[in-house]
């Protein structure tokens, strides 16, 4: 579904953040990218969704080359991105945030909204509340719900568990599993390597802009190197 071939991303002229990364996400999979802070995980997602540009290579989504597309055109092709730090529109209400998620959707927005509200009853309770006043967990649900409003085929999540209490982390991962069961392909970026490997069909390990290891989630979580570096022994 998503093929990334030889991605090289620079910040300015000297910082080489992503160094020749290639990987793929097959339809129906959950793929995790794990790695430490600054490994280039978020940069990869931003490049896929068109906010940043790769100097080389190609990004193919659903059979189409999308590496030259502007960000606002990529969403309507079925690729949604939940950015790091949630980034809900804090001055808009919960409902308006969801409507923005459906900006490119042709067809019945109300129906999709109903579907999202039934999946996230908490958002229904707070639909008229200003998003900036929600708790961290609620904001993350809103960010995921908002991305789901565009009815994506592939959902990219950037650090959905960041800054959340353990019980909320469980909830968010349950939501990701549910969305996956409902047929959405998922590309997950996480620092919480244990949870990310547990949920993933396959995973890639990034270190300073390069993929250093890959494999299925279970194998990786049993590997000694991974245990030592990411799972605390």
């Amino acid at each position: 579904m998503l093929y990334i071939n030889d991605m090289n991303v620079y910040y300015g002229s000297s910082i080489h953040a992503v160094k020749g990364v290639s990987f793929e996400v097959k339809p129906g999979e959950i793929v995790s990218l794990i790695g430490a802070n600054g490994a280039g995980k978020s940069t990869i997602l931003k490049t896929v969704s068109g906010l940043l540009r790769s100097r080389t290579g190609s990004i193919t989504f659903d059979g189409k080359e999308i590496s030259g597309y502007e960000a606002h055109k990529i969403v309507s092709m079925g690729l949604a991105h939940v950015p790091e730090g949630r980034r809900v529109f804090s001055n808009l209400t919960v409902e308006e945030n969801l409507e923005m998620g459906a900006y490119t959707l042709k067809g019945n927005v109300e129906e999709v909204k109903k579907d999202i509200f039934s999946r996230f009853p908490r958002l229904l309770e707070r639909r008229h509340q200003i998003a900036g006043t929600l708790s961290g967990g609620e904001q993350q649900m809103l960010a995921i719900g908002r991305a789901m409003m565009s009815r994506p085929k592939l959902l990219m999540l950037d650090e959905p568990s960041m800054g959340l209490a353990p019980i909320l982390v469980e909830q968010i991962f349950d939501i990701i599993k549910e969305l996956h069961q409902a047929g959405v392909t998922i590309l997950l970026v996480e620092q919480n390597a244990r949870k990310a490997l547990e949920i993933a069909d396959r995973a890639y390990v990034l270190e300073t802009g390069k993929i250093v290891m890959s494999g299925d989630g279970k194998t990786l979580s049993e590997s000694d190197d991974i245990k030592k570096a990411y799972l605390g022994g």
Partner: protein
Amino acid sequence: MTTVIGQLINALQLGSIYALVALGYSMVYGIISLLNFAHGDIIMVGAYAAWFIMTSLNSFLPFGAVAAIAVVFSILICTLLGAGIEKVAYAPLRSAPRLSLLITAIGVSYFLENMAQMIFGAGAKSVPNIISIGSFHVGKMTVSWTSAITLIVSVISMAVLTVFVKKTKMGKAMRAVSEDVGTAQLMGINPNKTISLTFAIGSALAGIGSILYCCAYAQASPTMGSMLGLKAFVAAVLGGIGSIPGAVLGGFAIGLAETLVSSVGLSVWKDAIVFAILIIVLIFKPAGILGKKKIEKV
């Protein structure tokens, strides 16, 4: 008592013009953090557009028709000019430092003023009053239709703008882009289109303002926009730049302050008092009355 009410009506008339202009300043600042110093000069162009129609068509058509054409033409010119300036001068600088953008805005302002001076000459042109229907009485008071219509038109424009920004899809997208351009793009919102629309709307309001200004002062001159623009800028800052109700509130407050100073015989101080207000706001409440303090997270 009648003098007080009379002065109050003057204040409302002046204030609503400032408010219309301040809205454009505030909306543009809200969406690309630019103090568009060319905004006042758009009003000047609108005034010349009205003057041109009023003086060139009046011998062929009845007054009412000429006035109607002048209003539409002037608003249209302002809208196109505002959106055009954004495309030509500001859009190429989207990723440039904010200071470059600000300097460009000042450059555009000088360009428009000198262009007008070259075409129309440095002297003022007198613009026939478009709302030339005299006055009416409320009790013992005489109220000119110009004042009444200015206030009514401004209030309607602001109400329409508020509904647009709050309720429509494009309006919500505008708010989304002003809060977070990157995330708005991830929603599929085209930021360039949204920014153009913001300039167009702000400039259309300036166009309405230019017509109302001509009705009040009956003249157009190349530099008329600079002082008007600066005062509207003060109004926007006073209300809280980036805030729509703030711009309206600030506009009326500045109109009131200026009228008050003039009415007690200190009219030579009326410009000074406006800028004194700016200084006081910047010292004691830099975010303005309705503005939110922006906490920049690192």
